[in-house]
């Protein structure tokens, strides 16, 4: 690593904490960001000669605050309005030691607030993610635009609009209470999970930009856990992301077609990510405060711990999805549970289970794929073929359609043999 690489890593690491403190100080996103940029420029000039400060985040906050105040003073001199002294003297009152301004107790809530700003409920999911990547992660508009496959101008506009909307929202800058903090944590965790799912992609042109999103989501989840190291749901979230991401290399074949979990080459699963994910699942379980991320992570952990698809503990996965269903009822969870049920208790039980959700998932590719598999396993070939046909018509990519076509081919082969196989919806 060159000096410059090393400095940019230090600046990137300090960014969330510094920008978060500056947002609390200036109470304005744009001012905070500009001041932080200014401080980074100064760091690039002075650090190589003087060496980095002991606490880079505190240094950046102090320099950024001063530059922000200077700017406010200049703006005041240019606008000859009287009675405008208050804003500036208010700022000057806060000029104390920077370290004191970003003491440990505050900065956790600062960073959580900064992340939470991006999760404004009025913002569509894609804007929440784009805003978080810009503000919290500090990615350039061009980098974000590439990941979302839109033009720079379109992304610039999207982010500007999102910023305008959050600027209008009144956000409490006091230290949040326990309930408010829990709500913020939940919203931020959901945003990080959305970001991670954006990074789920087949290899190919532009896939590195997408994969970077998944890695950024892991970084943010890790940051959140560093801030709240005893929150089991945050452990669950990071564990879930790590375990899912550990399979990234095994998920697609050379042609970019998705490979189902059961068919993946498990030697391609990345062991360090798995080790960390499993350690976090174990840690979370000790708290006896289960939540949706912990349960999903536990499911992922069971898949990971199985030496082969056949060794998977489907009975336990059935129970876990049952718990998840009670916690956050959703037809998609029921469908996932049915796949485990098919393995643990047989396809007839699985088919019964998905009967009540048929209507709400009528337009869902995976529903018809799974239903087709259950029917095929029961030897109801004609109905299975109809279900697979419906799935193909709902496929969102050629890879998905190709996958179901292979199922239909297998159906023909196994019908000839009087035998059938089943496939799950999980990847």
């Amino acid at each position, binding site marked *: 690593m060159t000096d410059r690489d090393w400095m940019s890593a230090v600046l990137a690491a300090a960014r969330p904490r510094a920008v978060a403190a500056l947002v609390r100080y200036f109470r304005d996103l744009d001012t905070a960001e500009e001041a932080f940029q200014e401080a980074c420029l100064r760091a690039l000039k002075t650090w190589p000669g003087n060496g980095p400060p002991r606490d880079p985040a505190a240094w950046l906050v102090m320099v950024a605050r001063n530059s922000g105040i200077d700017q406010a003073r200049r703006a005041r001199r240019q606008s000859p309005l009287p009675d405008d002294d208050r804003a500036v003297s208010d700022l000057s009152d806060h000029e104390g030691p920077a370290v004191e301004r970003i003491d440990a107790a505050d900065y956790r809530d600062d960073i959580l607030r900064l992340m939470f700003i991006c999760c404004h409920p009025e913002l569509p999911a894609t804007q929440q993610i784009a805003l978080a990547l810009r503000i919290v992660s500090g990615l350039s508009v061009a980098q974000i635009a590439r990941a979302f496959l839109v033009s720079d101008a379109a992304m610039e506009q999207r982010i500007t609009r999102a910023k305008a909307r959050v600027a209008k929202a009144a956000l409490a800058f006091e230290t949040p209470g326990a309930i408010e903090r829990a709500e913020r944590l939940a919203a931020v965790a959901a945003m990080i999970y959305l970001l991670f799912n954006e990074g789920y992609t087949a290899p190919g042109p532009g896939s590195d930009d997408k994969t970077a999103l998944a890695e950024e989501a892991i970084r943010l989840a*890790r940051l959140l*856990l560093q801030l709240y190291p005893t929150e089991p749901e945050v452990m669950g979230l990071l564990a879930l992301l790590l375990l899912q991401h550990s399979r990234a290399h095994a998920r697609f074949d050379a042609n970019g077609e998705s490979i189902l979990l059961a068919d993946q080459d498990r030697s391609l699963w990345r062991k360090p990510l798995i080790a960390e994910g499993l350690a976090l699942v174990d840690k979370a379980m000790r708290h006896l405060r289960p939540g949706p991320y912990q349960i999903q992570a536990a499911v992922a952990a069971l898949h990971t711990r199985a030496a082969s698809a056949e060794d998977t503990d489907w009975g336990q996965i059935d129970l876990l999805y049952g718990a998840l269903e009670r916690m956050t009822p959703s037809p998609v969870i029921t469908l996932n549970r049915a796949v485990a049920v098919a393995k643990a208790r047989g396809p007839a039980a699985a088919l019964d289970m998905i009967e009540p959700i048929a209507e709400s998932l009528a337009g869902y590719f995976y529903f018809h794929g799974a239903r087709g598999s259950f029917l095929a396993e029961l030897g109801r070939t004609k109905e299975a073929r109809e279900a697979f046909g419906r799935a193909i018509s709902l496929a969102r990519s050629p890879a998905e359609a190709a996958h179901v076509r292979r199922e239909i081919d297998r159906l023909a082969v196994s019908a000839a043999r009087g035998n059938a196989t089943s496939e799950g919806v999980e990847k």
Partner: protein
Amino acid sequence: MQYAILCYHDEKVVCAWSKAEDEAVMAKLMVINERLAREGKLGPVARLLPTTAATTLRKDRDPPLVLDGPFAETKEQLLGFYVIEAASLDEILDIAKELGAANPGGSYEIRPIGYFIDGRKPG
């Protein structure tokens, strides 16, 4: 004399490395590790998982207390360690400097080892 090199670094910085940056550092370190191994000086080497995966057992009470996180909340964290055979403090410092050049930032704490068991060997 056997020495332990305890590798401290700011975890936030290390976690901010991209996968490519991380791999570049590891590749440089591996070159040095391989040479030390050829020279018969290299003992066990470990890179630890992030402190968020750590658990602390406080055994100053009965029953002991299990806590999330590393033992101490410090600016730099113990992220890994080497065990290396060296003839003198000068030699181990030279080796540590070489490793440090491949992996800048943070600090190495060099501790002579008083007692060492390679648990994988019988006896």
